[in-house]
């Protein structure tokens, strides 16, 4: 496990579910992790936009819809091991259930922040991994590719 990954674990940004994801990558699905994470980014940004649109409304908030979007974000975040994002979603959900507007606003801010951090770090992680693979290929030309 490289240093960045262990750092992310230490920070609680990722949890062991991410490791499960990595283990699912095999010969039949060599790019499994990056594929899943890419979809995750796409979907999450969609949900975050949805959330923000609801919260932008000055008057009526559709709390039910908020809950739905949150639930999905929570599910996908937990499925890839994005622990901190998932926890923020849970707190956000509580705020929604209590109809606490200010708490919801705060939660969204934190959520967006956490998500950005996660996305940046995961990109970094993939870059490191790519470089490592390339490096391996260069260092050991003709060696059996591990993927």
């Amino acid at each position: 496990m490289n240093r960045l990954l262990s750092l992310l674990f230490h920070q609680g940004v990722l949890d062991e579910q991410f490791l499960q994801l990595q283990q699912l990558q095999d010969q039949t699905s060599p790019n499994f992790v990056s594929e899943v994470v890419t979809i995750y980014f796409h979907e999450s940004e969609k949900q975050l936009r949805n959330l923000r649109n609801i919260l932008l409304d000055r008057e009526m908030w559709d709390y039910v819809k908020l809950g739905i979007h949150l639930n999905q974000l929570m599910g996908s975040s937990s499925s890839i091991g994005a622990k901190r994002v998932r926890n923020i979603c849970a707190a956000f959900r509580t705020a929604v259930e209590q109809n606490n507007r200010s708490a919801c606003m705060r939660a969204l801010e934190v959520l967006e922040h956490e998500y950005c951090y996660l996305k940046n770090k995961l990109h970094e992680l993939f870059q490191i991994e790519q470089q490592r693979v390339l490096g391996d290929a260069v260092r050991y030309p003709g060696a059996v590719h591990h993927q």
Partner: protein
Amino acid sequence: MTTGSSFGSGSGSLGCKQETGVMDQFPAGLRVLVVDDDVICLKILEQMLRRCSYHVTTCSQASAALNLLRERKRCFDVVLSDVHMPDMDGFKLLELVGLEMDLPVIMMSADGRTNLVLRGIRHGACDYLIKPIREEQLKNIWQHVVRKKWNENKEHEHSGSVDDKDRHKRGGDDNDYASSVNEGGEGALPSHRKKRNNKEDDDGELETDEPGGSKKARVVWSVELHQQFVNAVNQLGIDKAVPKRILELMNVPGLTRENVASHLQKFRLYLKRLSGVAQGVGPSSFCGSMEQNSKLASYGRFEIQALAASGQIPPQTLVALHAELLGQPTANVGLPVIDHQPLMQPSKCMQVDHVMSYGQTLPSNITKQVPQSVIEDVHSGLGAWHSNNMVGGYGQFGGQNGHNMLFGMLQSQSQSQSQSQQVQKQSITVQPSRLVVPAQSSANFQAVNNGVPVNPSHQTTSFNRSSVINYGVGQRSETEMKMTGCAVDVENRIGGQGSVANHSIKEMGEKQISFGESVHVLDQGPLRNLGFVGKKSSIPSRFAGYEAESPTHNLNYADNNGERRIKQEPNIDFLENSKAGGTAVTHRVSQNDLMSVYSE
């Protein structure tokens, strides 16, 4: 919309192995349908299931999944479905699949709150997985398929089905060693499998023709059924009762071990609650908590009564339960009922008689064990009730209503004790009015009430005296009715006996001991009859609103209440209601008590 890759996957799911189903390369080759609107989860699950050597088909829409299942009924062995989906509620899908295709359905959700999980189980889910789902969990889902099939076979009680099981088992064992998809396992017992699968098809037919359809529909725990259950449990001994043995003893066609197991779990929680409730009762401030304490205690004792009345609770269990209930007898009975005790003495023998009549079939030895606290609690309970709610519409109550009231009272008693202070406050005011007095004791109690100031602090002495007198004197029959009412309601819950139980059930309009629903009905009926000054306005409107809610909603509340002490998250509904009004909360509380008894 189906994910193209998996739907027409090259692994042959299109050529649905109809004949060879599960047993082919068991558990490899298990045909799983995954339904989830979250594409990420879908992809991850697909990959995980593939790694378990299962055949995976994914669907991101529930409606599409249903169509798929309907078209190719025999092509799937198990369904994994998310709870929250945009086009259809996961629970609805769950029920439909269970009804139409009789496939095991496993629910999934990021939301792992107990009330939701409970809902899933109630709707018939074989399992409820909380996201994130790990591969190890998916490895075990084949167990649900097997279990379901075995239970169905067992229900048939055909000699053929016994053979099925043997073959099934053999096939299973053989294939366990074939970890990956291969032809070896298939080659092992080809003829057996063929036969078994034909038989399986036959069984399938039989199942559809089965009149009760109880395998497909959820089991309704009627009073009779529950009584059989209780009998079986008592026969085995509550500690040693296992679902399999209970099922055997009950000998009810169409009942599965799983039904019994879940019911047993509820029952155990319920009994635990009885003892837990008693232990929770302690010395507390006079007025409100007194009522609650005594009510709680009397509630518990009525339960014990009922249990005893069924005549089959082993003495040690009864005594143990009772001992727990008694807990601190002085606290229960002494402090709040300080004045009661001396007054109780003379009438004790009377009470015993009442108890006996109430129990109807109470063996005398058990009665003697129980009487004291029961009596006292009845008294204190009644006293408490009356103090706060005089007159009212007592006379209006027919037997059933009275029973229902008492029943409702019983629940609210227990529930109030376990609720936080804010709830208790409200429950104090509302409960007694709901409790009222069952049966035709109206005249009786009115007479009593006249002599008693409404002030609760006075209630104990004067009221009890008169109540004692009334008990003692000539009102036996009414009191009996009342007691019987208690018994009936309590018995309804436990699976009572005698004709009165059935009568009350009819009144309730529900045949099942479903812990939220019957209560729901109960509470509303008698309440409407009540003429509570000041309470009337608030209660019915709340109930009207409440009425609209589905029984499962009650479950949510119940579980919220039950969970209240554990975590904050699920309490939204509860908090909202408490904001809205105390009576509403109380109402829910009382209903929830019934629920929480089983759900906690």
